[in-house]
Structure formats: C-alpha cells, structure tokens
C-alpha cells in the first residue's frame, strides 16, 4: 500500500537532498519509523524528546491537515500523499513559563 511523502527543503539536508520518498507505512507512527531508519539525522527534527510531533511541523494528507483526519490514528490509504510543512511563525521573545 504505497504512499508518497514530500520533504520540505528545510529538512533535505538531513535526507541527502532527497525531497520525496515512497513507502508502505499504514499510519503516522509507521511512517516516522520508516523515515527514522532511512534518514537517522531527520529523527530529532520530526519529534521531540517525548516522542511528540514537533510543534512547528504540520503534517498534511492529500492537502488536509492530519489533525482533521483523526491525527496519529489516521490509517493511510493507498496513494495518499503526505506533506511535511513547517509552520511559519513570527517568533516571540516570551519566556516558556
């Protein structure tokens, strides 16, 4: 059940310049495992120390935010196109209190 994953330019230095891969992951957890194995340097950029998806990383499936599809529990369908897109915030000097 192949799906395609598009990797943004900002992350491609951790994928030897690879911008797209096809794999057979059935959900987000499996997809991350595939990416971890294929591109070990990418791992810390996708999830934090607690294994949570990084705050500024948005994940879309066929143009829809995965959070509207059930989040990590969403079961990938054959031919799904997964986009990893950085969230463009302006930043803040607020402390993390």
């Amino acid at each position, binding site marked *: 059940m192949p799906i395609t994953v598009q990797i*943004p*330019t*900002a*992350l491609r*230095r951790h994928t030897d310049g690879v911008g797209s891969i096809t794999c057979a992951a059935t959900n987000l957890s499996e997809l991350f495992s595939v990416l971890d194995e294929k591109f070990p340097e990418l791992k810390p*950029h996708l999830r934090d120390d607690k294994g949570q998806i*990084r*705050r*500024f*990383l*948005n994940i*879309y499936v066929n*143009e829809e*935010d995965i*959070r*509207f599809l059930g989040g990590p529990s969403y079961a990938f369908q054959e031919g799904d196109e997964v*986009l990893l*897109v*950085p*969230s*463009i*915030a*302006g*930043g*803040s*000097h*607020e*402390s*993390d*209190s």
Partner: protein
Amino acid sequence: MSYYELRCRECGRTWGNQPRSICDDCFSPLEVAYDYDALKAQVAQGTFSRERISQRAPNMWRYSELLPLPQSFTPRLPVGFTPLFNAPQLARKLSSNAAAGNLYIKNDAVCLPTLSFKDRVVAVALSQARAFGFDTVSCSSTGNLANAVAAHAAREGLKAWIFIPSDLEPAKILGTNVFGAKVVRIAGNYDQVNRLCSQIADEHRWGFVNVNLRPYYAEGSKTVGFEIAEQLGWRLPDNIVCPMAGGSLITKIRKAFDELIKLGLVEPKEVKFFGAQATGCSPISTAVKTGSPEIEPQKPNTIARSLAIGNPADGHYAIKTIKNSGGWSEDVSDPEVVDSIRLLAESEGIFTETAGGVTVGCAGKLYRQDRILPDETTVLCITGNGLKTTDVLAGVYKTERPIAPKLTEFEAYLQQTLDLDEVPGVIAAAQQAAVGA
C-alpha cells in the same frame, strides 16, 4: 539604524540576515534580535530619546532604531502614526460605570496607504525584499495583507503575486487588483492557501512577506505598541484588547512595550493583554479558556474573514503572551460582530471592518466579566477599515424610496417616517413651530 540579526526562538542559534524564517537545526521560528546594549548607549547619549523621537516625522519610521531596516533604506511612504483617541461614548455603552476618560481607540482603519495595520508589516518586509535582491514579492492573505503588499510593491517597483481564498470580500480583491498585482484565487480556506505558499516558497525565489521574510515583517507590528506608548504620553496602558488571526500582532505589541521598558523610554508596568476572536474561528481563545498551551486547529466559519485562520502560526506564542500577562481571551458571534461595528460607528464615528467588530464586541464582554475594570486605561486596537467589508452590512439598512426635490414632499415624508424617539430635536423644533403657528 541599529545592529540586528535573526535568532532561533527555541535553540538560540543566530542566522545573520537572510530571507529565512525557520531554524534548520530545530525547525523553530526565527526572530529578529537587536543589540540592546548599543541601543541603551544611544539612549544614555541622548541620540535616541523621547525628545528625539517626538521631533521626527509623524510616521512609523520614527522608531527606526527598533526596526530591522537595511543600512541603505530610505522610507518612501509615511506609514503609521495613526490616531489614538479617547472613546467616552463607547466606554459608557460597554460599561455602565466606565470612567469616560479611560477607554482609547488605536485607529489603524486609517493607516496609509491601504487602511489597515498590515501596511506596517509590509513596509518593513519590503525594505528587506529589495535589500535581498527579490524582484517579486508575494503573500498568502485574508485580504488586508493582499492590499498592502500590492500597493507597497507598486510603489517600490516590484512585481507582486498574491494568493487569496476564493471567497474573499470583493472590495479586498478589487483593492489588490487595482495596484496591478497578479491575484491567484485558491479554492480553499486561508490555511490551505498558506500551506500552498510555503510549498511555492520552496520552489520559487520570491520574497514571501509572511513566509521567508516573516521575521522582518512581524517586527513592523511593534510600531502599534510604540505609538500607543508615545501617544499616551510615554506611558503604558493597563490593558490592550487586540484582534487575533495568526496571533502575531498581540505578541509584537508586547515585545514593543518590553523594549521601551528595557531602554528606559517608559516606566515599567504590567500590561494585561486580551485577545479577541470570532466564535466561528476561535482556536486561540478556545485554548486560553480551556487552559491548553497548544492550538487545536479549526475550520473557519465566520464573517470576520480577516481573522479566519484556523491554524494560527503564532497561536502558541499568543497564548503565552496572554497567559503571562494575566489577560484573557474572548470571542463573539457573527451577529455580535455586526452589532459591534454599528456600535463603534454610532458612538465614536469610526467605521471598522469585521475584525474591529470582533475587538469591540469582545471588549464589551471583558468589561461585563470584570476582567477589564472601568477605572483602568484600556486601548482597543482597531486594525482595519469598514469600507472593505460592507457586504456584512447588506440588508441591515433598508434602501429609502426617493422623493421629489420639493419641500412639500419632504414635509410629507417627514410626517410619514419620523421616529419620535430617534430624533427628539427635530420633533421639538416641529412642535415649537406648530405652537408658534
């Protein structure tokens, strides 16, 4: 001019100055950081002081030391320095025991050149676009930003490609077309347009003001805060009520106040920040109300299209700004937005767009909840002009039948249509005339 560079908000790595908004190391947002020690020295020497600033031209460039502007930059438009004024009649309507002198309106409905606060952010972003050598600038927009980018690009001789949700208000589309910009309508909501623009920015070497130029762009919002402080007589208010879409403005007003305190230009004060959203798109106010530090994205469904961002990029930081300040966030329904537009117009003579209706409506709720107290100095940020969103008032006012240009016709019309309660002065005059007769 002052020394500044991009710094990662989360890991602290510095990136010099370049068209970039993300830290490659940790994927977090970049922010402009200044050499505050050098600025403090300028304040100590008197070369950057209240007096010096007050002698400069009345526009946002009077705060250039605290903006990320290129060395060679010469302002070509007098953007900003919009009026801040007292709103005594609105104060009485929002709070039965409000002290009339304590409520202020910061009126960016008349910001030049395109009548919204977005002119401020675009002015800064385009100064950098030119310095970085872009010949084309671009943005994803809910309307006001589209207008601002198109107008400033025309002025600067840059090409503009503007991406908008296809259901945008006609006046905002026209107000982009007229400047000669290329307008691309996307069959989707703002969040989808914004996602697409992130992808386009990956492929095309364009200056996207809210993607690769975003750290510089966002700094322009600080000028709202600088002006409020200066116009209050170099003091900070007790409360700020600010509309929230992507959540950037409220965090940047906070940054502006903190910088003025840091440099000794105002006395330190704990200002409470209150965020305003439309109930039909309220991811930030929902998070504040439920105590969540993170945004749960929403599908926008509101007439306040300029605030219709369901996945606000700076939402996390807006929540922190509100929470750390002891403020709160509210939201109002679409009918309340329309009522509030009319309330502001009828009480203070300001015609704001839907976002301003959201701000006024939420301010009323905050007064009624005693989160804002009548004796506190409160500033409402009105960020856009009502002439751009007239469609939301369609049907509110009936079209009067025309009458012949004859005095007798008018007198007959007056008798037929007069609402005695609404125009007592006219009635009194009419009665007096009748008695006299």
